[in-house]
């Protein structure tokens, strides 16, 4: 009986004991084919899915390596049936390849005739195929390249796309590394992407995804279209590109609701592209406006469905997806796989945190007891009102104030979901409020003031869920949210994970009303954060020590030696 760190479960989850001497080695061996699902303190859970196995195949791993890794590190005998199943699943990838034929153009070729026959007969796939060339290959309409890959994945025969890419219009782009350097993992991510041609790079919030994008552009040296979630994030990209590359302001265009510039490097928002007038997409021309050599998708996990459809037509262009998580709440991970590409690089949060590239965070749940009047209001409220009543309870206000007093000199964010509550907090804390209706100009101004330290506290609504960049936020206090959504949690946590200039610890507070729905949702959050490996403590509001008091925050803020 070997004594490995890994336990293989019947549902194809893998449990990795972190404290085991060979856990690091094992992690490296299983990372290519298993998605990290949870990473709490002692035992991490990975899941082996067909998509993950195909990702591994795309990255050049074969079934033998996978089986070997499982058998070698497994503590207990692995059921033979499970290994056979894994080998069979992996074997499905690459039976079909898409390639360019000198005479026939784009063709679908198979090494296994039976598979090709099955595919040709499939109702879903047949309309995308042209004439049969011989027993092993069939012509594909070039315009169907993306949709075909999508359909093939759905029927369980993912195709390997070797048809190559157009170079696009050349445009000189270099990284300007005079005062900074690309980190190792960023370089590995770029290399992984470039070698694979197209695909997704998974990096945690704050790990410098923008720089991976910039480096990929410097590699492509061609005109680039960057798709981002909103205007603020687009401006952030522009600022970074000007600072970190040889690109100048004139070379970068903004294509948004406000401006419609098309330049060698164009940054467009998802929203403007998906705007429809009279049922038609108005800005499709953008994709043909330039002979793009690279398309970058920021925050792939938020990519709206219409853009998937558009992306299907762009299969001959190199595509780079950037995201913190491949988990989509709409379950369209397979579309990301077939249309943007397989995962090319993945680094777990904790590892990058351990390297000091993102700030370590302390998560604290502060429990507030409602006063009798609030409890009665809550008790008699309609079910759909209950969460709002609990989350926006007045009793939270003094606690929020006390939390902020613990960190008098830190830039702090107060994040909430209900506008009247935010207005109230803004007034009580004497802090500006940023919400959906705040103009971009005003946002920029406030963010700038926050960055310079002019403003110490900002009250923000759900807009904070998306890609705004607040490098120096060290404390986040969330007072209400969207029913414990995991994605929201990841984004909010990301606000405070940007590395601090002096390596200080980040603080992530959640203020919760005890014994209400609010605390039930907090349980979801708590589970999510614990699964991500963050220390999570629960404190009673009455026990919340101020600075300098016993258990107060002072000592945690000292830099670690």
């Amino acid at each position, binding site marked *: 009986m070997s004594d490995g760190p890994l*336990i293989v479960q019947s549902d194809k989850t893998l*449990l990795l004991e972190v404290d085991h001497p060979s856990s690091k080695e094992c992690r490296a061996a299983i990372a290519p084919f298993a998605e990290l699902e949870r990473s709490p*303190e002692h035992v991490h859970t990975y899941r082996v899915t067909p998509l993950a196995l195909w990702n591994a195949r795309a990255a050049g791993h074969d079934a033998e390596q996978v089986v070997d890794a499982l058998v070698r590190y*497994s503590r207990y005998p*692995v059921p*033979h049936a*499970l290994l056979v199943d894994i080998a069979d699943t992996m074997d499905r990838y690459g039976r079909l390849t898409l390639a360019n034929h000198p005479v026939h153009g784009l063709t679908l070729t198979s090494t296994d005739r039976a598979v090709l026959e099955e595919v040709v007969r499939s109702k879903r796939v047949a309309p995308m195929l042209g004439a049969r060339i011989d027993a092993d290959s069939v012509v594909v309409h070039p315009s169907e390249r993306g949709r075909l890959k999508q359909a093939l994945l759905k029927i369980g025969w993912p195709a390997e796309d070797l048809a190559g890419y157009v170079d696009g219009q050349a445009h000189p782009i270099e990284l300007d590394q005079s005062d900074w350097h690309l980190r190792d993992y960023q370089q590995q991510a770029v290399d992984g992407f470039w070698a694979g041609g197209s695909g997704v790079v998974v990096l945690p919030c704050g790990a410098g995804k923008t720089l991976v994008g910039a480096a990929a552009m410097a590699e492509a040296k061609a005109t680039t279209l960057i798709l981002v979630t909103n205007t603020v994030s687009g401006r952030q990209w522009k600022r970074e590109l000007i600072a970190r590359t040889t690109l100048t302001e004139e070379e970068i265009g903004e294509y948004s609701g406000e401006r419609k510039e098309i330049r060698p490097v164009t940054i467009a928002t998802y929203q403007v592209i998906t705007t429809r007038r009279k049922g038609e997409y108005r800005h499709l021309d953008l994709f043909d406006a330039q002979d793009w050599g690279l398309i970058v998708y920021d925050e792939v996990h938020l990519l709206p469905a219409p853009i998937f459809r558009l992306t299907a037509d762009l299969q001959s262009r190199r595509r780079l997806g950037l995201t913190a998580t491949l988990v989509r709440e709409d379950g369209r991970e397979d579309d990301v796989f077939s249309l943007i590409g397989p995962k090319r690089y993945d680094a777990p949060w904790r590892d990058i945190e351990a390297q000091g590239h993102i700030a370590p965070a302390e998560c604290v749940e502060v429990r507030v007891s409602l006063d009798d009047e609030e409890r009665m209001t809550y008790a008699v409220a309609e079910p759909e009102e209950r969460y709002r009543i609990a989350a926006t309870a007045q009793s939270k206000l003094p606690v929020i104030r006390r939390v902020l007093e613990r960190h008098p000199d830190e830039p702090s964010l107060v994040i909430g979901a209900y506008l009247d509550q935010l207005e109230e907090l803004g007034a009580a804390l004497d802090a500006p409020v940023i919400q959906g209706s705040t103009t971009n100009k005003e946002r920029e101004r406030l963010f700038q003031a926050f960055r310079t330290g002019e403003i110490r506290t900002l009250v923000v609504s759900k807009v904070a869920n998306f890609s705004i960049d607040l490098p120096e936020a060290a404390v986040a206090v969330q007072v209400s949210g969207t029913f414990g959504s995991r994605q929201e949690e990841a984004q909010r946590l990301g606000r405070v994970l940007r590395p601090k200039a002096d390596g200080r610890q980040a603080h992530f507070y959640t203020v919760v009303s005890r014994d209400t729905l609010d605390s039930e949702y907090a*349980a979801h959050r*708590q589970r999510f954060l614990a699964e991500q490996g963050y220390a999570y403590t*629960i404190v009673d509001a009455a026990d919340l020590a101020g600075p300098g008091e016993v258990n107060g925050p002072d000592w945690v803020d000292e830099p670690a030696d």
Partner: protein
Amino acid sequence: MVTEPGRPSRHAGPRRSVERMPPDQPATLAAWLRTRTDEQLGALLVARPDVARPAPSDVVGLATRLAVPVSVDRALDELDAATLQVLDAVLLSATDGVPRTELAGQLPDVPAEVVDAAVETLTTRALLWGDADLHAPEPVRRAVRYPAGLGRRATDLRVPLPRDLPGTLADLAPDERTVLDRLAGDRPVGHLPDTTAGSLSPARRLLQAGLLARIDAVNVELPREIGLALRGDRPLGPPRLRPEPEVSERDPAIADRQAAGAVLEVLSRVNDVLTALEEEPAGLLRSGGLGVRDQKRLAKELRIGEADLGFLVEVAHAAGLLDVGGAQRDEWLPTRGYDAWREQDLADRWALLAAGWLTSVRLISLVGQRDVGGKAVNVLSPDVVRQTAPTLRRSALGVLAEFPPGQGLTAPELVALLRWRTPRRADRLAPVPDLLAEAERLGVLVGGVLSSGGRGLLTGGEDAAADAMRGLLPAPVDHVLAQPDLSLIAPGPLVADLAGTLAVVADVESSGGATVYRVSDGSIRRALDVGWSAGELQDFFTRASRTPVPQALEFLIDDVARQHGRLRVGAIECYVRSDDHGLVSQVLSDRRTAGAELRRLAPGVLVSGLGADEVLTVLRTAGYAPAGESSGGAVLTRPKAPPRAAGRRPGAAAAIAPRPLAPDDVAATVREIRAGDSALAARRTEPVRQVPGVTTASTLELLSRAVRDGVPVWLGYVDAQGSGSQRMVQPVSLAGGFLQGFDEGRGESRTFAVHRITSVALADAEDAAAPS
């Protein structure tokens, strides 16, 4: 071989030469048996044990027993294809009595030692007899329906052969020739395809040309002569030598490890299933199985496929861990055996499952398949009982046990070998691939190779199986790892009492080598409900977890415990209340009211487990003036109404009109009258009546005459349900106690058991045409 002095012609060695053959060869089977040595007769009884009990009184009795068709069939069933081919050679020869020496000549492709061994096997079993010349007893001839895959003779089939057979065959169209070649292969009987409008199918053309014989409405047979002509110089077909299967090889150590993986898997799954059934038993269907709804529920609960669940439930049942129980005996519940099983070590647990599976008469692979009515067979349904299942499992796995450790056969190879070994039972081999797949899931087999445990099971039974598996399975662990996300990880199989406790305080999230439990407010509440206190839970987690108990878990327990039990529910029969709290206290402390069993629930409220009437009486007797109260709070002053019986409700008069006659009933009645009428007419030709179940010679004679002359008969027939009927039948064949014929009244071909025929009468032509 021992030869007794004075009886020189008794033994039948395979190498007896013609020259030495004495002139007084035995003339009958009985006479030949008389010449056999005691050892040879002993070998005969060992090979055909069914004739030995009860002991035959003499050789004639033995010969009679040996001629019983069932016994012959059983003996033939155990022969392999090579031996049967030698038997076919004897059966096909033109004369009865084939000299041994000529036999090898008829099978030029078969090595002489194979022929000799086959003859030895056949004579040992008295399926052939004779020393110099080999004879086949008549029952053997009858039992081998199509020797060497050839049909009956043309004369028996009443088909006139074309004068120039080779010429006719040479002139056939290619598609016709294909049909004939196929029928000249293993099986001379074919199914006639449905008539398509327009052109005739090749088979129908052949039928018209007289090259095929029709044996019933849908089947045709190829006459032997034509089959032989098509086969040319290999009248017995290709030699049926033992196939040389491709041996699968596996490192025995790796195979054992993989088997151990399967074992852990199946053990934890079976345990999950039984735990789930313990919590919520599945209902017993009236037809005896476990309902589809329960199957779906369990599969969903355990996150496995429904078919997988069916397998696990069947395995648990076969091992005696699951059976019908409950107060009404209408539920599937874990048995007492399950409690003992849980306490055993893993190897013993597995051995019990594997042995239960091996000896089970239930063919699990039939579960979920559709029966003739199109209904899927339920899990645990009595419909899948097949008495041959244990033999089949043992014989299939037995073949693999003949290989050295690390070697085995894939399922198709194994089936091919079994098909050669027992060709007459080939139709029973269909479940073999499924049985092998089950063996793989149980860890008995890995990729066609027996694991050490599986080998132990076959050779030494349950204990040997457990011993062989013991070293391969991990020792149980006695701790879990508690994590901040409120999951508990048991890094291996748990000791039984810890597993039992965890089943209460946490929910299983994933199982396999380890078990992942999740603690939730629901699971903590469940633990509190069954009597745990918050302190005990904290203690338990501290003791059971090797890692520090996370703060979140402590908070969770306290949160739930704080809310738990704030509302209390109890059962009482009545209450006593008053706004005058002093009075209530007085009643409670009054010794005379002790009989009312009152206790104080709240100020001003007393409750009692006795009925309101009794309490009222006690209080009145004690000198108080209580009043009854309705549920609305009103004072009840009036006495209850005197009791009355519930009378019949008016207006519900019983229906007295007779049920109207439906059109179907009318038609059936008319049909019966007509049938009786025709039967009466047919009796002109002296019907043969018989006592049901006793077949008289005259019945058979009349029937065989009808078959020969192709004359329709009136049959009085009792069907399996016991209802009698009269039918006009055009007989086709009479064999083995069954009459094949075309039932004119029902317009279909049918088979009638002769012993169910109550009367037979040859019908006249006008009867045959009469409507029925």
